């Protein structure tokens, strides 16, 4: 018995998490799939009505806008946050005397709830109050920065605020990574006279592949779930120009009493995540096993 336990201990340790994931993630996805085939309104119902909810979803112009925004927002947010996070980590890794303070400054936005920082950003980005008004006040009368109120540009203001919130955490991840790189290898490379930037691009950055995986997962998770931010900053507006699938789904489920519709939009979101994330996970995990 103890022998069996000894051999199977790793599996026993994983078992509770495995069961939890099975029920609370995949079970609930299954539940959502079921509800997306019903005409549930205020509360979930379980009589199947075919694909009516998906037909309604694809007929809604607002959903198109939300999906487009997700791709624009997701791509920009993930790529810029990663680049900025890596850059800040490298800059901060150069023996900066005030590192502790600067690191905290970069990291703190994550600590604040977007319910209120959204209001601060709204004022900063508002042309009549914030940056535009200030720069105009300095005498640059032709300066304009009206993205917040421009239906074509509003989604980019959400990118700005989202990067502000999350890039510090990505920096922390990379900083932890930079410092666990084996210093022997770096010293050896420098003895060989390899220039610094080459040391970074050829040795240090590639050795941080698992950190990139963490950063990618963290950021895409934030991108797909971005909700508070949109609500607080633009409320999805002007019109519904800066709507995202998460806000669409929430509106359907909780302010419009249209749970079937919300479930179908959730399923499409999950499908998008699946097609993007799973190949990435697959390649990352396989590379590790080789």
């Amino acid at each position, binding site marked *: 018995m103890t022998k069996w336990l*000894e051999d199977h201990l*790793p*599996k026993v*340790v994983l078992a509770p*998490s*495995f069961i*939890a*994931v099975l*029920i*609370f*993630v*995949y079970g*609930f996805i299954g539940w*959502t799939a079921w509800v997306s085939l019903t005409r549930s309104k205020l509360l979930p119902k379980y009589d199947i009505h075919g694909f009516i909810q998906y037909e309604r979803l694809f007929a809604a112009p607002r959903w198109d806008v939300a999906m487009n925004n997700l791709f624009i927002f997701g791509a920009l947010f993930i790529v810029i946050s990663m680049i900025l996070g890596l850059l*800040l980590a490298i*800059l901060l*890794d*150069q*023996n900066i005397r005030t590192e502790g303070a*600067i690191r*905290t*400054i970069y990291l*703190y936005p*994550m*600590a*604040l*709830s977007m*319910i*209120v*920082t959204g*209001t*601060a950003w709204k*004022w900063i980005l508002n042309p009549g109050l*914030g940056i535009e*008004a200030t720069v105009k006040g300095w005498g640059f009368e032709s300066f304009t920065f009206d993205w917040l109120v421009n239906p074509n540009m509003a989604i980019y203001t959400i990118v700005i605020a989202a990067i*502000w919130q999350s890039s510090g955490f990505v920096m922390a991840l990379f900083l*932890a990574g930079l410092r*666990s*790189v084996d*210093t022997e290898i*770096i010293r050896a490379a*420098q003895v060989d006279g390899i220039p*610094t930037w080459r*040391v970074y691009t050829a040795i*240090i950055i590639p050795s941080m592949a*698992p950190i990139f*995986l963490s950063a990618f*997962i*963290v950021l895409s*998770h934030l991108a797909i*779930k971005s909700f508070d931010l949109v609500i607080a900053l633009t409320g999805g507006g002007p019109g519904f120009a800066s709507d995202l699938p998460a806000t669409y*789904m929430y509106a359907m*489920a909780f302010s419009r009493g249209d*749970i079937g519709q*919300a*479930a179908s939009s*959730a399923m499409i979101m999950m499908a998008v995540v699946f097609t993007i*994330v799973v190949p990435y996970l697959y390649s990352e995990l396989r590379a*590790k*096993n080789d």
Partner: protein
Amino acid sequence: MTDLAMSTARGQSRIGKVALRWLLYIALGLFALYYLMPLFVMITTSLKSLEEIRTGDLISLPREVTFDAWKTAWATACTGIQCEGVRPFFWNSVLIAVPAVMISTLIGALNGYVVAQWQFRGSNLFFAALLFGCFIPFQVVLLPMARVLGLMGVAGTIPGLIFVHVIYGLGFTTLFFRNYYVSIPSELTKAAKVDGAGFFRIFWSIFLPLSLPIIVVTVIWQFTQIWNDFLFGVSFSQAGTQPITVALNNIVNSTTGVKEYNVDMATAIIAALPTLLVYVVAGKYFIRGLTAGSVKG
């Protein structure tokens, strides 16, 4: 600090080195401005009187500094019928966040340890399945979770909220630890096994002592997520167990009432203080963890 930083400038001239240093500090300073801008707005607003906010510029410095808004936010702002500020809700959040962070970090460390060092058939599949679970939108799980909590008899209670946060935090905590432990050579585990050390002993005496930096990252992440969570907090609580974000929302998000922006901003900063504190304190451990790393290297 890696030795790289020390030696970066070795080959360059003295003047070039100084210029580069300055450039570096200017760049870091500019980024700091970008990060501080909203905080500046929040703090200045919280120090203004409502009268000044109503009439003046929203972004300018206060003409007259007053701490009334802070007092109101902490002790007398109305979050419903009770006008006791956010004070009573603070404790609820602590009761939820501290156990949930500890439990999910511990389970994540063990999971990560298994997935990284004790691989078996299907362990990678388990890891992938867990990771994909990170992406499930929380709005989706709200209703079925409510039903499950009801069946478990913990609906509206603090243990119920801890349970929910642990479940949906597992993906990330496992991810962080797995990615950290994967870079520790597996020879270490093998050697220890040859010496007769068991599963938990290796974890306890080899892996855990090396884990400080990643524990810090995980705790920062989990604490931030749980402390700032609103959706679960509002849905799975009842009167008496509501966390601070619900109180914050109640103060800030009134639809047809008079908006007191100074109180809103002060409340938001108060609500964020514990997370800010974690960041400042954890920052030190980053450095300590790093020293441990250089000893290892």
